[in-house]
Structures are given as C-alpha cells and as structure tokens.
C-alpha cells in the first residue's frame, strides 16, 4: 500500500517536472504571439506548490500509516522456519513411500508414547506404508471393545484393519496429567494445523540448541526451542542420532529421522495427495484433448464462412451485365 503510493508519487513528481519544462516552453512561444496572461514565474510557483502538496501528502500518509507497531517480541513470535526443498511438495511428485515407512517406524518407536494419531486407521496404512499382513499383525497387537454381547457386557477383541490406531492416553486430562500439564497434540493433522507445515515440524524437531542463548529465560519444566512461539516448549528434545534402527539400514541421524517422520505426518494429514496429483494430471490431459478437439471443430464449422468470397458487381449502364 505504502510502496504503491510512493510509486505513484514519484510518477507525479516526474510529471510535474516535465510539466514545468513544457509550460515554460509554451510560455516562451505564447509570449511571442503576445497573448500571455501567465508569467513563467507564476507557473513555476504553481508547479512547485503542487509538488510540495504531493510530497506533503506522502509525508502525512507515512506519519499516519507508515511505521507499524509490533506488539510481540521476536521471541514471542518464534523463529520462522526455513524452507526446505521437500520433494513431495513438488507438483508432480508423490510421497517417497520408503521414507513414509521409516517415518511410521519413528512415530511408533518415539512419538507414539505421548502423541496420538486418532484419525488414521490401520486400513489406510495398507498399500501405502505396510503390506496387508503387516498391518493386520499390527492391528492385532491392540485390543478394542466389541459390541455388547447377550448379557450386555462389552468384551475385548483383537484389532482389525478397520480400527484406528490407539491413543497413548485415555483422554486429554490424562494426557495433561502425565505430561506436567502440557497436552501433546494429536498428530493426525498436525502438518496442516501448524503455520509452516512440514518445515515447521522438521525445524521444531531438530532445532533444539544445546543450550539456550545467553539471557533467555526458560520456564520451569520447559525447554528452549527457537521455532516454538514463545520459545518455551514442554516437549524435550527426543530425536538423537541412532535412536532408531531402520530396517533398510539408512543411517538414523536425528535429521534423517525428523525428515522421515515429517513426511509421514504429512501423509497422515493428506493421505489423498498422491491420488490428488494424479487426478490433476488426468484433468490436464483431458482438458488439453478437449481444447484441441474444440479448435479443430471450430475450424470445421467456420470453414464455409472463412473461405467464402463476396463479389459485388455494380450494375452498368450498358445492356450486357456479366454475373459470376
């Protein structure tokens, strides 16, 4: 807004300057004709006054709207996460499903002890992260309530593919109680739910400095993380080098694990992404074909009009008028 008005004002100043030149020229020419009502001095004063008004309006605008007041300190805002070149965020790229598999392993072995994944059923893991048999075996590790039996009792049964991944705590209150009052958020949609998405999650997981910078105040039971708004986060650093043994023998450095689990969480938030991109490609294919067809049809339909020839032979005074 301000920049635009500045641009406009510079243009105004430039035009005013040109105006001065033009006016003085015209004054010189008009004086020779002898009909000069305006002296060059008065015109120059008018131009200078107009310029002063223009500059003054800019100054007044800047005085009113220019400086923005920041109510929050940078520490309260949190450090904005760096943009990383995620492959799966490119338009025609899918998730790296080997990375998703590693990320799910990291979630199960590290994150799942505190964070739930309430919106992800086992069936959605089939074909994207696990095979059918692996997912079934994983589901059967947990027990779920059955329908009430004949006596009205609710029994337990082993999990099925249609069940959802169980939460570590019974409810939010239990989760708060176990974590010193801080609620570990559900991770199903966390990539969509946080400003900065994947970059934020990755930066947060890997961004714990070895010690907070000098003078920074860290609350009791909190840890310093620059990317968390307010910089005091209840979650301590969890990812350390070699914490997980990957089955594909990828070196499990902290940043590798963070990258994998972030991509997995992105999948959990947007499991439809691969299909969505394929659908987009299909739409491009179909619309381009339809466009090409429409161009050819247009040519065909307009052919008689474009190729016609109109000839006008004026009637002549002579007897013999020829017609084509």
């Amino acid at each position, binding site marked *: 807004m301000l920049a635009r008005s500045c641009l406009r004002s510079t243009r105004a100043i430039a035009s005013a300057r040109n105006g001065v030149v033009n006016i003085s020229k015209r004054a010189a020419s008009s004086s020779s004709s002898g009909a000069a009502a305006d002296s060059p001095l008065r015109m120059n004063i008018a131009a200078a006054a107009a310029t002063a008004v223009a500059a003054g309006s800019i100054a007044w605008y800047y005085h009113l709207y220019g400086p923005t007041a920041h109510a929050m300190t940078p*520490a309260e805002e949190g450090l904005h996460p760096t943009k990383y070149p995620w492959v799966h965020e490119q338009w025609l790229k899918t998730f790296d499903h080997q990375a998703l598999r590693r990320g799910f392993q990291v979630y199960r072995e590290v994150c799942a002890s505190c964070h739930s994944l309430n919106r992800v059923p086992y069936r959605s893991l089939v074909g994207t992260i696990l095979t059918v048999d692996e997912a079934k075996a994983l589901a059967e590790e947990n027990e779920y309530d059955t329908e009430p039996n004949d006596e009205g009792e609710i029994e337990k049964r082993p999990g099925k593919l249609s069940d959802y991944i169980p939460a570590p705590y019974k409810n939010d209150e239990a989760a708060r109680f176990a974590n010193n009052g801080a609620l570990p958020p559900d991770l199903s949609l966390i990539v969509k739910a946080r400003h900065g998405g994947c970059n934020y999650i990755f930066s947060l997981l890997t961004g714990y400095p070895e010690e907070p910078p000098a003078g920074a105040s860290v609350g009791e039971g909190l840890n310093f993380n620059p990317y968390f708004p307010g910089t005091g986060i209840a979650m301590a650093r969890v990812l350390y080098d*070699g914490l997980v043994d990957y089955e594909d023998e990828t070196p499990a*450095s902290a940043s590798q694990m963070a990258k994998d689990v972030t991509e997995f969480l992105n999948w959990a938030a947007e499991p439809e992404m691969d299909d969505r991109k394929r659908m987009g490609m299909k739409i491009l294919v179909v619309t381009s074909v339809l466009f090409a067809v429409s161009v050819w049809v247009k040519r065909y339909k307009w052919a008689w009009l474009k190729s016609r020839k109109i000839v006008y032979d004026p009637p002549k005074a002579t007897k013999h008028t020829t017609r084509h």
Partner: protein
Amino acid sequence: MGIWDTITDLFEAATPWTTAEAEAPAQEEEQKEEVTETKEDEPEAEEATEEEEEEEEEEEEEEDEEEEIVDPKDKLEEECRESKQCFPAKHHFDECVDRVTNASGNGEGKEDCVEEFFHLAHCATQCAAPKLWSVLK
C-alpha cells in the same frame, strides 16, 4: 522365473497403466530362513566357538557404527555459522553474549540474546538447507 516372466515384467514396466502390488514376499523369506537354520545346525562344536568370536566382533563393529553417526545438519550448520555469509549475524550474537554475560554479573541482566540467536540460526539453516537435503535420503 522363466523367460516368459521376464518378458511380462518388461512389458508391465513399459506400460504405464499397470499397478504395483504391495505384497510381502513371504514365501521366499521363509525358505531362506529354513536354509540358514539347516546350515547352522550342520557345523560342529569346534566351529561354534569361532562363530561366537565373530559375532562379538560384529557387535563391536555395530556399536562403532552407531557411534559414528554424525548428524549432517549439525555439521553443515556449524560450517555455515563459520562461513562468510553468516559472519555479521555471528558477530552480533557473539558480541551480545559477551555483553549479557558481563552485565549479568553487575545485576543488570535484563537483555537477552534471543533475537541475535534467531538471526544466526535463520542464516545458518537457510545456508545449510539445500546441502542437507542432498545428503539425507
């Protein structure tokens, strides 16, 4: 795998409309396990001691490997922090740390270096991001 399987595989790889099935190769793995079990049963007690020694060595090697894992992010960001690109940010941060640590001794420790730390961290991560992604899988 007959020659026909090879041809169908090639054909399926070339055609874009085929779908990849995510099925576990369960049977082959089981067979391999059986084979290894039979092999392990065959050697006698004399060889068993040698195997134990080998296993111990392997364990040690594994431990070494685990110790060797160095987070490329830490390394790259450290290099970036020292680089010319981030010199102003690092200079300001170091200066602030000196000032604050000296001032806190005098009881005037109101200032903190969070903002300077942010600028330095921003510079270092920005510089390390593309390098890091080329290293990570």
